């Protein structure tokens, strides 16, 4: 590995969060629905009633 690559990796070792990932949509309602699904993904937690009707996100690019 060259010096540039090594230095780059040393400075970018942080985990990527959802908001940093490229999205298939830029629509706020769809982003909200996508995030709610991620937040309540394992079935242990039930989304509040008002949050259940988010629009489905589009397919990934």
């Amino acid at each position, binding site marked *: 590995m*060259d*010096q*540039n690559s090594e*230095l*780059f990796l*040393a*400075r*970018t*070792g*942080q*985990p990527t*969060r*959802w*908001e*940093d990932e*490229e*999205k298939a*949509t*830029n*629509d*706020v309602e769809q*982003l*909200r629905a996508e*995030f*709610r*699904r*991620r*937040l*309540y*993904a*394992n079935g*242990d*937690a039930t989304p*509040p009633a008002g949050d259940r009707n988010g629009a489905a996100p589009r397919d990934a690019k």
Partner: protein
Amino acid sequence: MDADQFLRLTEGLTGTPAKDVSDTDRGVLTTLLADEARPIGFSQLNELLLLVNKDRMERAFYDYFFQGPCTVGTLAAGVLRFQKTAMLRFGNFIHAYRTLARFTSVDELKAELGEWAALPAALAERFAARSPKLVDIDLIPRDHTSLVGYISASEVVAEGGRCAFLREKLPAAEALPVAAWPEYEAAVNTAGPRERPALQGLVANYRKKNAGATVAQFAEYLAGVAPVLEGNATRLDEVRAKATRNQDIYLTWDHMDVYFATSMRKRWEFEDLFDFVNGLVGHAELSALNLRHFDPTQAYTKDRVDKGLVESLMLKRAKCTVYSVQDTDTLGKDSELAATLAQGKPVIAYVPSVNLDDRANQLVAEEPATVHDRLRFVLYADDQFAQSVTPEDFAFVRGFQALEQFERDRVWRTVPDPASVAAFRAAHGADLARLCRIVASSEARIYDKRAKTLKETHPLGIQVNLATGVANGVLVVRTIPECAELLRRVVTNALEFELRETAAMWYLEERISGCVYRVVSKDRKLTNCFWNFYRRPPD
């Protein structure tokens, strides 16, 4: 002028070699052309052309290109005027001469030349006389422009969602005073597995900053933060609504002069473009023209298909594209550059020229998170980084991890935390200044290299008008004043060129940018094949 010089002029005029010129003909030419002041009338020029076996021209051609009293000494200037026009309009000399030499009136000839025959003053007057906009866009302020993009929107959505979730998992009010962290953290861990690390990090960062804080105090803290996050969400919705209306307004404008091609993800990319667009269109060079432009920081389309169609329409309508070379070079921006060139329209590429002191100071004033992002960008984009810094600076960049730590310790990204920023600057001011200077130097290298690539090395820095075959080169500028002057000259047909000739080609070099704008290859095989297909009628 001697006979050889005249023969070279006729080759430049007709685009074909002078053949079978006898010694007798040369002798006549030598005599006729010895006096530079000798007037050369329309019919006399034709007689000279026929003498060297070249096609004659109609009066309109002579009047248009050999203006004024034409003499032996001014023949070269007339041929040069024709060659420049031929390259601009036709991309070659042969077809240009054959076409233009046959027109019997100057008006017909001008009609064939179209925009290239328009007078700059008349065009400037036409721009100034246009009606003002009936409806203007509602300007989104600089520091809100990034909300048009997906990264800022995602941050607002995610942090609002996380805060709501954390509040939802708090014990009931009566249980809060005695609530313990393990039980609360267990409740937080019921979140989806991919979101858990972010939530756990958020709670951990709060507890690290507030040693000994209880769950009840965290509840109070969240109650204080929630309105800020809700305010962000409201602002996001307002900006998107405004940008959607702006998009509709752009669509209805009866004039569209300039399209800005750009790729924006990060906040500073929106803000840099906002500064560039407003600095450019507000420049004194352009103010009298009342140009209309499409500013992507001010418009939003929900659907990606519609967004693509809107941008395609703007590319069709605009007279030229200003391509802003920012951090991210993407398929979208490069496609817009190509689509503009393929229509035969000019592309001005703006590659910022970095002043090291100014840029370093600007970076120091940014939030540490932004400096961190800039560092990551230059380490990714500057393949000469390690080779270009001193060993001491390399070791410093390798070892200075305070930025990452600041980033890791942040509780929220979308809630300002001036106290933490001030504390960071107090603790690391000197190191931060050193790092910002290293980053600024690297940015300068990156932009210099991009300018060189577009201007000198990339074959697709020159593309072709697909309808006519005329080669069309990108014009690269490094400052806003240069960009403004070039843009004014583009829209008023006032560009100035030098015609250069090498062993391989003729090319037009634009004066302000120093870039190649038009080319005529001397490769016979390529030229013959190229024009056989480009000038062929559609199947």
